[in-house]
């Protein structure tokens, strides 16, 4: 970086005033800072959600328990679901998207960094509103506050208003991040980075962001109507005056079903990066996998009526939703097939990211297999709103967001911090989580199927045959929480104390491994000309060619090419 003698010399008056680190971070438009804050915040809220889950499981450990009052239980239920979805699963997905996608496409930043920054801080505001609500009265209307229970006549405290404001702010934040990401992916790809060469996770970013742009405004509309109903004598969800309670269900389930699919898309996007790296070969059926992710976004969201099979709506609509939901077997099955055949031709290095990725595929497969029963209209009349639904959804979403999220965390932690997460603690954490998830959710499947235990209830009765199932589920939740906390502790300890990772610890194929660990603010000094969907493999081959040595995996130094 030496200036030529012909250039005028530019003199600055001293160095710019240095600001405290937190102020730098808080005002940063760097996608890596925004992504890191969001990922760290999401993991913090995972811990909060766990505390709420454990309080509810403690209440349900024994029949007719009086540990929590019904009101407190309903508040915990509402907070738990909202925290798990809006403050953990979705922000973790968007934090990873926002950190990684620009690096993967060889961009030096995002297209609209201030929009991304606003998205982050709207999300922080959402979390503040939701938990400021905790200081007075949180919502008691459950994870999805169905009209008319969410109306002023039945819940007159401001908890539902706080819920609406919080989810609205968070959704608006995700929408802004999605706008920035779709623009960045469209406009800022490195030379040669055609759409067909985009890494699968960058494709997942594009699909997830477009999905949020479709479903986010639907929830915002519903929340606006809810706030008008509650505060300005609206009649959107009131029966008999031109409104309809079912309107809320349609709008909210479009969002929640889409969000479920978004978590699946983000998880499989990450898994499809992790598995090829750790088995040392490219992904089988790349185009099929990307097409399947698009199909999941479209078909999955169209199945929203699957959540309304007991509502008074026409049977034709239910058959439509059933067709869409069962059609999902094809894209999910194709992704699983391609992941497994990738492993079948590879050399498996069983490190923590692959372990968690395999755990995610396993848990998601169990959850979605159980969801098949909920897609069958007649069978849903038996199983809907039983703990069988709780168990199935938790297998899929804990598999996607927690196991999949932890796989991504272990895989990209070296890129974000320059250090690797402790391997032995990761293994202990993983097996504890596997045991905990099985103990916590399998008994719920049984209790819902064979005893018909209903969801969201603050107590059950001793003569119902549910006692053993619930006790095991409560112990399992405790074990699962212990396993999750181990990984959170591992991340905190490894941030500064983990072994140094180098720039490309896994031998990855995409461009984020071309940057330093952690990357410079401008991401890349120089950019390679992308010639295939495996830019890092091309670079390693070029190095090998020039130095006439055999290519090593992982590459020792991946800077000076281009």
């Amino acid at each position: 970086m030496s200036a030529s003698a012909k250039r005028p010399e530019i003199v600055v008056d001293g160095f710019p005033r240095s600001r405290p680190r937190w102020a730098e971070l808080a005002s940063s438009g760097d996608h890596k800072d925004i992504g890191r804050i969001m990922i760290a915040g999401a993991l913090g809220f995972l811990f909060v959600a766990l505390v709420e889950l454990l309080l509810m499981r403690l209440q349900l450990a024994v029949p007719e328990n009086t540990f929590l009052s019904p009101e407190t239980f309903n508040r915990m239920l509402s907070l738990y679901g909202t925290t798990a979805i809006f403050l953990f699963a979705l922000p973790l997905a968007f934090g990873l998207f926002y950190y990684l996608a620009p690096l993967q496409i060889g961009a030096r930043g995002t297209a609209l960094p201030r929009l991304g920054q606003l998205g982050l801080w709207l999300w922080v505001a959402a979390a503040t509103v939701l938990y400021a609500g905790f200081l007075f009265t949180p919502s008691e209307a459950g994870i999805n506050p169905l009209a008319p229970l969410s109306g002023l006549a039945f819940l007159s405290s401001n908890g539902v208003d706080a819920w609406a404001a919080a989810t609205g702010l968070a959704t608006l934040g995700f929408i802004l991040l999605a706008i920035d990401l779709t623009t960045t992916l469209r406009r800022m790809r490195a030379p040669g980075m055609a759409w067909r060469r985009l890494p699968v996770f960058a494709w997942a970013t594009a699909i997830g962001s477009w999905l949020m742009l479709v479903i986010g405004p639907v929830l915002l509309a519903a929340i606006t109507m809810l706030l008008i109903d509650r505060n300005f004598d609206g009649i959107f969800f009131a029966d008999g005056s031109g409104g309809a309670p079912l309107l809320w269900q349609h709008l909210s389930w479009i969002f929640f079903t889409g969000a479920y699919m978004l978590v699946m898309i983000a998880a499989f996007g990450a898994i499809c990066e992790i598995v090829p790296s750790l088995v040392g070969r490219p992904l089988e059926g790349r185009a099929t996998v990307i097409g399947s992710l698009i199909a999941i976004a479209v078909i999955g969201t169209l199945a929203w009526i699957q959540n309304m099979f007991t509502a008074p709506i026409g049977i034709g609509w239910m058959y439509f939703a059933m067709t869409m939901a069962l059609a999902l077997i094809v894209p999910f099955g194709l992704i699983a097939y391609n992941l497994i055949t990738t492993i079948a031709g590879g050399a498996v290095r069983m490190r923590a990211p692959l372990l968690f990725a395999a755990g995610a595929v396993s848990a998601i497969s169990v959850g979605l297999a159980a969801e098949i029963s909920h897609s069958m209209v007649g069978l849903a009349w038996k199983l809907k709103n039983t703990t069988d639904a709780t168990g199935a959804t938790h297998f899929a979403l804990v598999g996607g967001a927690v196991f999949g999220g932890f796989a991504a965390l272990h895989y990209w932690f070296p890129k974000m911090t320059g250090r690797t997460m402790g391997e032995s603690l990761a293994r202990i954490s993983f097996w504890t989580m596997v045991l905990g998830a099985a103990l916590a959710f399998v008994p719920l499947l049984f209790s819902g199927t064979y005893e018909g235990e209903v969801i969201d209830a603050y107590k059950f009765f001793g003569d119902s045959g549910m006692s053993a199932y619930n006790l095991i589920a409560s112990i399992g939740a405790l074990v699962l929480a212990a396993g999750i906390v181990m990984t959170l502790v591992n991340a905190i300890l490894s941030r500064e104390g983990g072994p140094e990772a180098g720039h490309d610890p896994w031998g990855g194929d995409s461009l984020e491994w071309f940057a330093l660990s952690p990357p410079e603010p401008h991401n890349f000094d120089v950019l390679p000309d992308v010639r295939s969907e495996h830019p890092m493999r091309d670079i390693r081959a070029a190095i090998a060619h020039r130095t006439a040595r055999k290519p090593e995996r992982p590459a020792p130094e991946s800077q000076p090419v281009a």
Partner: protein
Amino acid sequence: MEPHSPGTDQIQTLFGIGFVAFAIVAVVVNGALIYTLRRRRTGRGAQPADTEPRTGRPQLRVGAALGVFAAAILVLSLVFTEKAREAPATGPAGLQAKGSAPLTIIATGQQWLWRYEYPNGAFSYYKLVVPVDTEVELELGSTDVIHTWNVPSLAGKRDAVPGKVHEVSFRADEEGSYTGRAATLSGAAYAAMGTEVEAVSPEEYESYVKQLDADIQAAQDEVVSQIESGETP
């Protein structure tokens, strides 16, 4: 949870189909995943990784096979859901209503009770008494929030939504008592909101509703007479 109505028999068949589909998916995916991970593990004389994706086009065949699997589940669910929806005709041991019309009972959900109104105007809370082997049609409604009527032995779940009438019909095949719990969060006492359906012989049913009507009438007369004589404010 034993099925005791023609509709729930069909739902039980669907449960078997759903369970087989669950088992196939869970076992195949997890089995193949664990098998390949163990077989290709480095260190135990493992083969080196293939560097290129396989040639040939298996994707279409796998996709088609998955499509056939999904279509089979779809067709089976359609067939048995349609069967479960069929109104069950009153049997020989049942109450022979006028014509072939079902015995219609208005069931109203409210926080946190079910109110049942019989054709003769008599009504009861919590407990519904029906004649055995008779087609009963409930007209579900709600006066406040959404409640889900749920007696798993007799019928599938149905939501009672304010402003709507939602029908559900069943035919209890055996005398006895069938219980269930409401299945949509409806507020503080939701967990305690249950109901009981008692199936009795047609004669017992007739005398029960007559007695119920007489009791209600007597109670109302008593109140009216007390008001008229100035005893109650």
